[in-house]
């Protein structure tokens, strides 16, 4: 597979880049562990004062933290570094070289930069989800686990698609450097179940910056709170948003005319 070969090449290059800064990598992982400690402590503080948060128990919030870490990892390992590179390439015109290559430009823009050490968060996220589900004492069927996984995936695709649309807007508005800040800012809202937020905030995190669709919704499926109709709706939303994003990207690309001309 062409794409897989490219992907492994990108991985190799980025791994080499991060190995050049070993001390930084170690410090970053330590800081990451520190934040994990803080997250667990803060959940402890919350649950020493209450039994449930928006109807969710301690274990369920640990599981939610796991799902949140998935999304967070995508933000920091892929979206953030590639946005920086993309904005730079629009300003100085190096986007030319990306378009010249005989590969899907959206693919190149997505994967050319990776913060490799963040990969360990994947394992951490899985552990948190398993421990959380155990703690909550809920029984899960294989089917529920499957829908959970698919919903996490489709939620991440929705956020990814939003990102593509946001950076594609730079083709129209060149000075739109802050394109991703709005997405970045609201990610933290994924730490807690959307059901505790006031209605206006729920609308924002579900429909405008759909962070809750990637975090709260899959866990609702795992808890068996989600009907078949809504599940299909969320899957469909994932597919549709990806389709829309790639169309916006193509249309935007046609407007690109380099930085010097």
């Amino acid at each position: 597979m062409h794409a897989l070969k490219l992907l492994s090449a990108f991985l190799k290059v980025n791994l080499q880049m991060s190995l050049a800064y070993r001390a930084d990598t170690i410090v970053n992982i330590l800081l990451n562990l520190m934040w994990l400690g803080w997250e667990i402590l803060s959940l402890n503080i919350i649950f020493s004062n209450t039994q449930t948060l928006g109807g969710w128990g301690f274990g369920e919030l640990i599981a939610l933290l796991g799902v949140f870490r998935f999304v967070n990892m995508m933000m920091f390992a892929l979206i953030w570094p590639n946005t920086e590179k993309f904005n730079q390439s629009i300003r100085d015109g190096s986007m030319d070289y990306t378009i010249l290559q005989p590969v899907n430009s959206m693919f190149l823009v997505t994967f050319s930069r990776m913060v490799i050490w963040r990969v360990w968060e994947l394992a951490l996220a899985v552990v948190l989800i398993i421990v959380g589900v155990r703690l909550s004492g809920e029984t899960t069927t294989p089917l529920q686990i499957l829908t959970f996984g698919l919903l996490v995936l489709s939620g991440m695709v929705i956020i990814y698609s939003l990102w593509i649309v946001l950076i594609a807007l730079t083709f129209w508005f060149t000075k739109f450097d802050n394109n991703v800040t709005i997405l970045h800012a609201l990610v933290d809202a994924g730490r807690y179940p959307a059901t505790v937020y006031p209605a206006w905030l729920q609308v924002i995190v579900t429909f405008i910056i759909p962070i809750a669709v990637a975090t709260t919704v899959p866990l609702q499926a795992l808890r068996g709170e989600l009907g078949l109709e809504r599940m299909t709706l969320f899957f469909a939303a994932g597919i549709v948003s990806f389709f829309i994003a790639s169309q916006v990207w193509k249309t935007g690309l046609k407007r690109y005319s380099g930085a010097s001309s």
Partner: protein
Amino acid sequence: MLLIFKRLWQVNWAEQWQYRANLLMYLFYWLVSPIIYLAVWSSIATANGNVGGLTANDFTTYYMTLLICDQVTSNIVVHTFGSKVQDGTLSGELIKPIHPMLTNGLASNVAFKALTMMGLAPIWVILFFLFRPDFSQVTAFNVLLAIPAMLLAFLIGYLLSAALTSLAFWTTHIYSIHEFYFALILLFSGQFVPLSLMPPVIQTVAQYLPFQLMMYYPIQLILGKLSTAQILQGYLMTGVWLAISMVLFNWVWRAGLKRYSAVGA
């Protein structure tokens, strides 16, 4: 000296004004977590009647006041100064016969704050109508008492961050050090939750640290939750920490300058 500050203010104001769109985005980014904490804690208080004696309205007023306090007492030294040491642009400032950190750095921080305050004001009003906090316990006297406390706390925070950022003379890991520092603030300032709900150990330690002077103390002061003795104690702690942070900054700064040999020199 006043003229110097006036000029520095004009320059820094103009500079920050250039980046007003960025500032607005920063403001938006910074607003999210207090609003989330507000939502989380007031929902818990509503569900349980109260949390450790605090009602939903107590949490709402707490975080609404925090939005202002944090904006007044926080600083951006690491962003304005850290890179100057790393890329050597500090040299140009060192030639001038004024202290770069205590004049230009201070002016740029205050200009930044003035602008973000302008952005925060309308957002705060909108949030006020969304959350409808009941501020009837707040008296003008308490607000007047809290203003000098917040300004002094800003100075403490500024000097501590400046001392910490001056470590850039020795190490390139300055942003990682600050990340750790931010975690300390989160833990001991009352940013996540009113300190009275924190585990007892953290509360005891927090009493002796400067971080609660930047948030918990002025917020409680404004909300009229402190006795006269507690108010005096807070001002005393502020004085002590101001002295400590001045000495600390001076010491690190002097030692750092001796090590500094600009990049490219």
